[in-house]
């Protein structure tokens, strides 16, 4: 029993890692740009397909492919900012619709380029850390956990300690006042989009060998990310991380002891409950939306 608990706990830590990478990106984009990026799940998918193309098909080393995924998806984010979100800045519902359009385009491109079938990706490493007979952590999962901790810490330092971070947070709080202080709104939007999209991309790239990669993999991911950012409080990065951990724990344990569908229902019900009791979420303030 103790083994089972420990193993489930480890699984939850892994799930929390990639969920928080995705959710933090989504929150960052929402905070700075004020739009809900529905295409965020497809950015994750684009990261996974970068690994399929480079690592599986062209035999590039895995970590080079992962880095390429981060940069490629970050650039996709830049393109979205320039083409969609900047012209629609005063129109949040318009931004949402445009991101849905972008989602369909990315999905169609993935289907056309790679087909609808699941991609088979050779494992990066077979090695497993064994804590005991029945408590084991595959090293591939450890990569994801380490990456999440490192990247999120780096992001935290960037946001709290650097001038760019200050500018970004100022623009998120009050775009007009920030613009009056000489902060370029376009510049901060670009940075936020690059980081937000890049985080989704690297999450997709790192988990590609561990999940089933197909053009529709973004759907369940975006639902999870929505739950997490609502529970954590829209616009709160710390909230997104805490909520990711909480959601991953609840979801993994319910999946282990009941089944996956019930776990999804529990997750969504939690979100609905938070919306009813405290719509601004656990860490949210009533600033935005």
């Amino acid at each position, binding site marked *: 029993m103790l083994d089972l608990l420990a193993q489930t706990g480890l699984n939850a830590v892994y799930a929390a890692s990639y969920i928080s990478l995705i959710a933090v990106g989504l929150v960052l984009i929402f905070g700075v740009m004020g739009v809900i990026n529905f295409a965020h799940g497809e950015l994750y998918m684009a990261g996974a397909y970068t690994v399929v193309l480079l690592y599986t098909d062209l035999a590039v080393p895995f970590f080079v492919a992962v880095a390429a995924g981060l940069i490629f998806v970050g650039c996709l984010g830049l393109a979205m900012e320039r083409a969609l979100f900047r012209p629609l800045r005063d129109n949040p*519902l318009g931004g949402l619709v445009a991101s*849905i359009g972008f989602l369909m385009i990315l999905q169609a491109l993935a289907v056309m380029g790679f087909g609808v079938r699941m991609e088979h990706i050779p494992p990066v490493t077979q090695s497993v850390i064994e804590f005991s007979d029945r408590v084991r952590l595959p090293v591939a999962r450890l990569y994801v956990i380490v990456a999440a901790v490192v990247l999120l810490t780096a992001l935290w330092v960037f946001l709290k300690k650097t001038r760019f971070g200050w500018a970004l947070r100022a623009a998120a709080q009050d775009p007009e006042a920030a613009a009056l202080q000489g902060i370029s709104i376009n510049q901060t939007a670009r940075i936020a989009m690059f980081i937000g999209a890049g985080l989704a991309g690297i999450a997709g790239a790192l988990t590609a060998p561990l999940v089933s990669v197909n053009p529709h993999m973004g759907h369940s991911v975006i639902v999870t990310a*929505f739950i997490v950012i609502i529970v954590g409080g829209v616009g709160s990065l710390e909230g997104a991380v805490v909520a990711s951990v909480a959601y991953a724990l609840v979801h993994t344990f319910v999946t282990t002891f009941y089944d996956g569908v019930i776990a999804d229902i529990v997750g969504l019900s939690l979100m609905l409950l938070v919306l009813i009791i405290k719509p601004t979420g656990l860490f949210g303030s009533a600033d935005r939306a």
Partner: protein
Amino acid sequence: MRNLAIFVLGGAALLALPHGLSFSQQEILVFLTLNILLVSSYRLLTLTGEWSLAHVVIMGVGAYASAIYTKELGIWVPVSILLGGATAALLAVLLSFPLFRMKGFYFLIGSFAAGEIIRLLWKRFRDPFGGAKGIKGIDPMPDFSIGIYDFDFFEPISYYYLSCAVVAVCLWILWRIERSPVGLTFHAVHWQDRLAEASGVNLRAYRTLAFSIASGFAGISGALMAHYVGTINPNSFDVDLMVFVLTWAIVGGTATFYGPILGCVVLTVLNEIVLREMGFEQMRPLIYGLIMILSILFLPKGLESLVQKIAGKRPGKDTPERSPAQ
């Protein structure tokens, strides 16, 4: 007199329409008719300023309810279709208690969560919802004859005529509701909520009313669909269809009654007839996505604004100006 002529000509055109089409196009025509009801009922909800992401699932509630009523309780199909709509409306009233504690963005996400929960419940509970495979072998509409025409409901043409009649009646009711004092209050709830509340309008009650009426008609549309297709499953009512409904409403525009219908017809014709026939099968979502983006960028007030421009439009005297995206 002129109105009567337009009415007769329009009716004749609708009657003649399916005869020039192939079998598969006739089937698409049936779905188009049902989707028009779906998107028009959605517009009634957007009148109060709330954009729901649960509308398609609520349509599914009507479909599931009607299917179960006929299968388990042996209720006559036409009656059970109406009961399906009533069930959807009733569920909307229940859902309104948690959902209307929220507004705007939170309502959008909250309705999405509620819809997904309902869909997962269908998936999880095999009895009576049939699990992931859904319900199969739903009773079709019983055939009947009206003297000059024999309705055989395995023929899409017959079902098209039936759904046309039902949808026309529903649209007329929706139109009357919008023009009634209740409909004007919906506008007030959206645009002047403080003022409306100060004048003694119960905002929550009117939001709930709009939500349940819209859901009722969506339920009827779903029930009609269930008895035509014969099988339904949780994936028939997933987010993809909801995205389409949202797109029809936004591309068409929601300031006028005909806007969403226009969006639905134009995009369906483009999607099903033009793109499918031209052999762009794989590229269809891509082109659809492009159209969504281009129309929100360059035509933010929807196709209806084009129509108004062409018609040399006098500014609407009864519908206040509203942009689709707030």
